[in-house]
């Protein structure tokens, strides 16, 4: 945000504006920049998901719109969704039904404020950075429950209950895995966490010691469940629940759920890239000429690709298996990891 504020200073007569506007405009501009970035990333990820799934199943996927490998397909789809009629079914709770997609999206969007895309390209560097991300993502859970209840549809209600139970359970091992990194850095700030990993890939927390390597795997599995991806996609299991909590939604409100889902995928991948893969720092010193944001996006995209790869390779878990993995496997492992990582940090 500082760099945006400095850029704005160069606009002639900017100093002449009232102070209140001078304080407000950088905030508004950076929100718009983050939103545009997010929308672009999501458009690209949806296209990538369709291509990856197609090639895994020996198909070609979208090939027509836009010419080269159907690159404009998701732009066309997004426009179609935005122009559709806003249908609100008869027996829904109108206020909550209309509010829910925006609360779900808010939870995803607010977290992007603290992501460090590069050494100087981030909106703000909060002292409590990573804790802030954990905190605002709890908004999405409430939004999902709200959508499921307001729809007045049993599939929606089942889907939202599953989603909420899953998200709040897997938050715990994810947060404990995050804590192992915080022990080493001694700060919750995202920028500080990346600074602690500068200087080649051997300094990344992923390769520091075996406990952190396992913590990365625990975080990755838990984050898959938090964003409701296969093999943890029970909340929207098509074969049993139609579409889960967004069964009754269409048009723009559905688009917001879709946006939030992919934004959350990008979010957990960026958090994993920041915490364990060195964020914007280059893996080799000869690669340091590449701008930080590019390195950051490549790392996040690699993790997103792995998420997609798993989605199209693995079957879905049962509910009892889901809870078993969380409470009896991931949670004890993550507690052992925090002890081990703490012990290694003292040594």
């Amino acid at each position, binding site marked *: 945000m500082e760099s945006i504020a400095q850029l704005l200073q160069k606009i002639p007569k900017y100093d002449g504006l009232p102070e209140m506007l001078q304080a*407000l405009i950088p905030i508004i501009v950076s929100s718009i920049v983050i939103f545009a970035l997010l929308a672009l990333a999501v458009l690209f990820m949806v296209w990538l998901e369709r291509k990856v799934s197609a090639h895994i199943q020996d198909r070609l996927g979208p090939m027509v719109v836009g010419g080269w490998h159907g690159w404009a397909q998701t732009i066309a789809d997004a426009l179609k969704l935005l122009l559709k009629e806003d249908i609100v079914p008869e027996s829904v709770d109108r206020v*909550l039904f209309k509010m829910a997609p925006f609360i779900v999206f808010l939870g995803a969007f607010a977290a992007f404020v603290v992501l460090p895309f590069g050494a100087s390209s981030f909106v703000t560097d909060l002292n409590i950075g990573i*804790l802030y991300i954990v905190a605002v993502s*709890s908004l999405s*859970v409430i939004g999902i429950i709200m959508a499921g209840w307001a729809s007045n549809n049993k599939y929606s209600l089942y889907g939202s209950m599953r989603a909420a139970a899953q998200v709040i359970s897997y938050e715990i091992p994810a947060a404990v895995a995050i804590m192992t990194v915080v022990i080493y850095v001694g700060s919750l700030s995202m920028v500080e966490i990346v600074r602690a990993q500068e200087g080649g890939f051997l300094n990344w927390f992923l390769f520091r010691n075996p406990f952190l390597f396992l913590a990365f795997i625990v975080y990755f599995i838990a984050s898959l469940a938090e964003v409701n991806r296969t093999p943890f996609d029970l909340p929207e299991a098509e074969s049993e629940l139609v579409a889960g909590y967004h069964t009754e939604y269409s048009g723009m409100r559905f688009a917001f759920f879709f946006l939030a889902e992919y934004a959350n995928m990008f979010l957990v991948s960026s958090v994993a890239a920041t915490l364990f893969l060195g964020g914007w720092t280059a893996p080799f010193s000869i690669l340091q000429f590449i701008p930080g944001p590019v390195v950051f996006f490549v790392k996040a995209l690699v993790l997103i690709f792995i998420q997609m790869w798993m989605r199209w390779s693995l079957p879905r878990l049962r509910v009892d298996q889901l809870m078993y993995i969380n409470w009896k496997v991931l949670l004890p492992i993550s507690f052992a990891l925090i002890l081990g990582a703490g012990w290694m940090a003292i040594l």
Partner: protein
Amino acid sequence: MDKNLLSQIVFYFFAVLTIGSAAVVVFARSLIRSAFALLFTFFGVAALYAYLGADFLAATQMVIYVGGILVLILFGIMLTHKLYDLKIKTASVQLIPAVIAVVAVFAVLAFFMLRTQWFQSGSMLSGPTTASIGNLLMQDFILPFEVASVLLLLALIGAAMIVRRRPE
């Protein structure tokens, strides 16, 4: 002066949000609406903490109250059979005792509110609070901290004990 005005607008926005949604919590006729209105109350309180510079407290408020307690309340309402579409009666009963109790509570609160020397936000430490909170919890307040964690552990074991299926 203009910046001051902006921060006052922010403060009054969140104050109105907190109190307004708290009123919805009390007066809503359906239980689930009350629970969802509580989201905005918790959010507004967290925003007010952040406004006062207590960043760690604000995030903790969100994690514990929104991510934990509110979800628990919503689950409780949804899983309880035929409770979530129950209409709550908002008729007034016991008017005179209620008025006496409310006036008494208000008098006590107002008395202490006016007598206490409040910190002005200007004189407050601005800067990271997380490290100092951690040091205080692990050094000066280690005993209450541990007592609280043992209490929580007891509650957890107790809950697991109650729901356990006993062999017939």
